[in-house]
């Protein structure tokens, strides 16, 4: 069966390659704010949609890139399954699987279940010459050829237009429970997160904000009950809603219109007070700062601890949104970019200024 939307996308990329016409790849537009400023002619992928295959017993789902995350999650929900990395949708029903893979962002469950790249099994892409290619597949284990499928996760479309994705799926846990504890300082919460994570407890989320620590436990009834006793604190019956709002940046903390910084660091890194209101997620491995902080100063501090900083929202999108790369690493990126996209037409400048 000819696939018209795929053919149209291929023709558009081939033509752009011939004319060296930069493209701005757009799925549902839910993450249009993310990364450096988009330039180039819009290339819309949302019409290329539909679930190709879903077999709950195989724990694999394949769908075209324009399929919405909402549609996929609804389908999985019917089988008591889910996307393990809880991708943020930023309040939009339009967020697509393609954008989800390209941005590579994950929600509160990430430290305990894995990132987008951990669940990507295979992709079908268009490279910058408009060639259709498949990497990976629909099986859990596959080491044939370089792992170019996972490489697409977080590449912001710079290496290829994602056409189709196969994802590993996980079952929903039978029981979930959120506990809330009080910690005036985030350092105490982070210390607790890391102590708990070293024990065989069914942790599935750990966050701190404004003196409140929340921990989510997911698993069998007995394991969750015993873990809750070990953790202590009070049950937060509205916990499910809290995690959803954290995931989609709907908490009041994220409504601030000043610059939002995302700090990714080793979970126990002691970064000091960091002169800004803070929200700690991922058991300490992801920290959000809003307003007040000097982005470049935070960057230097975090880099010393082995982490990196993204100027996530409301910053100057012509500046360095992502942490600058060391020279040999940057050179590798540039050569890799050229290997996929010799004319430099796929989302140029969205990740780094010069490519």
């Amino acid at each position, binding site marked *: 069966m000819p696939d018209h939307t795929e053919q149209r996308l291929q023709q558009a990329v081939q033509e752009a390659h011939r004319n060296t016409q930069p493209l701005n790849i757009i799925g549902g537009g839910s993450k249009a704010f993310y990364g450096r400023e988009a330039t180039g002619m819009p290339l819309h992928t949302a019409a290329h949609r539909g679930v190709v295959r879903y077999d709950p017993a195989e724990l694999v789902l394949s769908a075209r890139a324009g399929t919405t995350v909402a549609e996929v999650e609804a389908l999985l929900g019917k089988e008591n*399954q889910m996307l393990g990395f809880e991708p943020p949708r930023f309040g939009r029903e339009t967020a697509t699987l393609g954008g989800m893979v390209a941005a590579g962002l994950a929600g509160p469950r990430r430290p305990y279940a894995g990132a987008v790249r951990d669940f990507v099994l295979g992709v079908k892409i268009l490279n910058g010459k408009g060639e259709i290619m498949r990497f990976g597949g629909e099986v859990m284990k596959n080491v044939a*050829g*370089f792992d170019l499928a996972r490489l697409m996760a977080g590449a912001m479309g710079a290496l290829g237009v994602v056409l189709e994705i196969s994802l590993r799926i996980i079952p929903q846990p039978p029981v979930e429970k959120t506990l809330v504890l009080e910690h005036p300082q985030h350092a105490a919460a982070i210390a607790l997160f890391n102590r708990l994570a070293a024990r065989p407890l069914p942790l599935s989320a750990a966050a701190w904000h404004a003196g409140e620590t929340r921990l989510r436990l997911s698993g069998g009834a007995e*394991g969750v009950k015993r873990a809750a006793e070990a953790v202590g604190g009070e049950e937060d019956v509205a916990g499910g809603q809290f995690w959803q709002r954290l995931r989609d940046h709907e908490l009041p903390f994220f409504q601030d219109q000043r610059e939002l910084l995302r700090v990714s660091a080793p979970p126990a890194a002691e970064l000091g007070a960091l002169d800004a209101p803070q929200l700690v997620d991922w058991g300490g491995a992801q920290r959000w700062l809003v307003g007040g902080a000097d982005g470049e100063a935070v960057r230097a501090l975090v880099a010393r601890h082995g982490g990196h900083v993204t100027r996530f929202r409301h910053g100057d999108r012509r500046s360095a949104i992502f942490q600058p790369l060391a020279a*040999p690493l940057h050179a590798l990126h540039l*050569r890799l970019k050229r290997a996929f996209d010799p004319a430099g037409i796929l989302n140029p400048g969205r990740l780094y200024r010069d490519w």
Partner: protein
Amino acid sequence: MNRQSLSRHFRQFLPRTSVIDQVESLRAYECDGLSAYRQLPLLVVLPETVEQVRRALRVCRELRVPVVSRGAGTGLSGGALPHAQGIVLSLAKMNQVLEIDPINRTARVQPGVRNLAISEAVKHLGLFYAPDPSSQIACSIGGNVAENAGGVHCLKYGLTVHNIAGLKIATIDGDLVTLGGAALDSAGFDLLALMVGSEGMLAVVVEVTVKLLPCPESASVLLGAFNAVENAADSVASVIAAGIIPAGVEMMDNPAIRAAEDFAGAGYPRDAEAILLCELDGAEGDVGEQVGQVREILRRHGAAHIRVAADPVERARLWSGRKGAFPAIGRISPDYYCIDGTIPRRHLGRVLTEIGRLSGEYGLRVANVFHAGDGNLHPLILYDAARPGELQRTEELGARILELCIEVGGTITGEHGVGVEKIGSMCVQFHPAERAQFHAVREAFDPGRLLNPGKAIPTLARCAEHNAMHVHRGRTRFPDIERF
């Protein structure tokens, strides 16, 4: 370049014991775990420091000498097969655990550290390193990264790629590049994912930061015996559909069961057509409940016999048969050849039936062991290399089985890598544009193509030759197959 003059280049900065140039000593490196392929290298170089690795690479780049990196040499696809005009860069002397960080739950280790040694080094903290390839007592973490090694616990705990937090790599230019670290992600492309499984063709791994997980509170193993392979396969699907992710699910067919039982005395029923071993782990009460659920599912699918290991001794005994399956086959056949295809589990019945038919067609016995949870099949072809032409027929049967795996939407290798062994089958799995993309990626790292040349990614010429040979066999390829 001859052996002696090349040797002098390395002796300028390496101790005498770190440069092997005597033919009798080089023999130890002529093959890896796939001994059907052998080749003497010009030299073996064994650096002890990152600085020495970088200098060695610069020498090779300057003199245009191919470099084959090698860990413990346990690989099963000939990935560490030496190059006649090149050096073997052995990382075996770089075998120190550099740092254990119990708070961030990571360990920084050198590439020559053995897989099992990591878990042993952190056991006192109640932590472990999850991927456990069957060679874990001997294989090195650097080799695990190169091959994206799996093991029996992948379905729940993931492969090497899911359990590595960071790498330090040396490029062919001798540059040192850090990828990832103890944070959960890093800026830029996910080169960490790209490096894992790249079979030593992009860079040399000189340091690995692994993730450590808390040891599960309890574990239990069930054995189910079936009169039909399909029933065993259906049970696995039902377990997973019930929302249970076992720590491991292994399946064996009758020839494998009998060989394993004769070898290990694990208590497997010799007349069963298939057995399943299902390990469940987690919180104590939950494991007990899941054991009950799985037992019921196995019963419903017609298991003739179900046993639950009551204690760690019994559990180890049940596993002993599976873990000894390869040597067990080695006892009943002069030689055996292990296939590593992976398929969507729903096609297991069809694939096993077809393997049975092919086994008859080629007149070669096949025993099947199977990582049933993740679809990774290990058909073992029994042969005798002493009989003229038998190895060749074995390899041809192997290639036919791999084509079958591709046909049902699977892959030619789940965890052993392509190496030299499956390079022809890569021509079937990937079309020319895809293979050209692989080469372009490789050249972004190594424009002179000096790192492990001739492995993993076939050249255009190699595939032309491969396809010509197959056309000669008079069968159509699968031009229109859906490979997803």
